[in-house]
């Protein structure tokens, strides 16, 4: 029964969706019924366009997410561990973070042109900040008394960082990665609004221009499913690596 619980709400939404069109609350041109959307998706697939959109968008998200989170991992670790670097870098990072990340879009288009580079860069910026902020906070939150235990064994700073600080801040890092990933999906759509010729974000703007609401729903559903699936993957990794936590979340697993 517990396995079915998460499906109740989506099923209810689909039923409401279908019902409201069938009873004429919404006209079919505003809200196409589910079969029409499925048909539109099948049609797009048979022409090879849906596959191309999916591959393009997934590629941009993964590429941007990996670049952005790797940069955040490196810079966050150094900033978190070194007071000197933190003093030099943190105020600037905090200032940059207050710029709504989407405000970078016009500048990136100008600098990097309209092909892949600005899109991937935008996704990377979107992924960077949540990972960086959470990792630095996680490192700063590490229990001082655990570090003392390591110091008793006369470990070097590098060994203390590797064996105590990093594992202790892993929960924050994974929270950051999940937030960064959802930001990546947000930013890829925005990136694809500007001068893209493929991708789910492009599908949304393109179908808006041709008034194809059914295709817009294909794009929306595609983003919802991909976002959910990738988040589930990270969530599964989180559960596996953080089994040691003594929290409400891990209680069910123990």
């Amino acid at each position: 029964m517990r396995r079915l619980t998460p499906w109740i709400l989506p099923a209810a939404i689909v039923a409401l969706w279908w019902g409201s069109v069938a009873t004429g609350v919404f006209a079919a041109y505003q809200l196409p019924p589910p079969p029409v959307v499925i048909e539109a998706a099948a049609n797009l697939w048979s022409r090879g366009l849906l596959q191309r959109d999916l591959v393009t968008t997934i590629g941009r998200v993964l590429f941007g997410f990996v670049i952005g989170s790797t940069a955040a991992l490196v810079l966050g670790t150094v900033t978190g561990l070194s007071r000197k670097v933190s003093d030099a870098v943190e105020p600037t990072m905090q200032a940059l973070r207050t710029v709504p990340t989407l405000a970078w879009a016009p500048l990136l288009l100008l600098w990097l042109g309209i092909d892949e580079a600005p899109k991937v860069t935008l996704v990377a910026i979107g992924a960077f900040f949540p990972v960086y902020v959470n990792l630095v906070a996680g490192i700063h939150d590490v229990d001082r008394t655990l570090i003392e235990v390591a110091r008793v064994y006369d470990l070097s700073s590098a060994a203390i960082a590797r064996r105590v600080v990093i594992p202790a801040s892993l929960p924050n890092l994974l929270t950051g990665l999940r937030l960064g990933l959802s930001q990546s999906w947000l930013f890829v759509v925005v990136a694809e609004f500007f001068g893209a010729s493929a991708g789910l974000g492009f599908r949304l703007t393109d179908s808006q221009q041709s008034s194809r609401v059914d295709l817009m729903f294909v794009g929306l559903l595609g983003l919802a499913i991909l976002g959910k699936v990738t988040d589930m993957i990270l969530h599964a990794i989180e559960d596996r690596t953080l089994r040691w936590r003594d929290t409400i979340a891990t209680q069910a697993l123990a």
Partner: protein
Amino acid sequence: MSTPLRLDQIRKRYDATEVLAGVDLEVEPSEIVALVGPSGCGKSTLLRLVSGLDVRFDGRIAVGDREVRGPDRTVGVVFQEPRLFPWLSLADNVAFGLPDRGSDGAKALVRETLGVVGLADFAGALPKELSGGMAQRAALARALVTEPQVLLLDEPFSSLDAFTRMRLQDHLLAAWARYRPTLVLVTHDLDEAVYLADRVVLFSDRPARVIDVLRVASRRPRDRRDPNLLGLRVALLEALHLERSELSAVV
């Protein structure tokens, strides 16, 4: 393996507050010494200095021939809280301080030490799955496995219930008999002090200095109901009570 511990005129200040006012103490190899005194008098600070975690003090601390200038693997510490690494299994926690912790020899050593503290069946358990007493036993095993010459314990059993505390005192004695470290224990529990120690060192209120040293002559294994121990407990109480009347509330 064991060495003597020698403290000469240890003085320590935190800004304006003088914490240690010239403490002298000599501990023989494999001796068990209990430090008792009023809360906040500086006993724990003294242990921190011996452990090398705090090197800003005046005076001289020597572990055998080595003068303490920072943490050293010859000195082990058990803190008031278990301080286990929550992401490591018990076996990995115990192995934490071993230089070659991946080796078969180290693994055998970890198993053996877990056996000494009665946790042989819990090698794979995570800290969150342990009771307070088990966690503190694991912390004891982690300190013992590197076979330190000097073992420092800072009120190690103070947060445990009376039954668990007595069991752990016996675990500690068994481990001490096995590894024979020089052992210095800070405690507020006078029964614990007279049951475990060869000598009980009494400290004054802050700034701490040694006001008396009582020898516990009873042979081990000791009986907790031994009238000699109970008599010593009364003597300790009186000595401390003279020093500071509020202590009767602490003990």
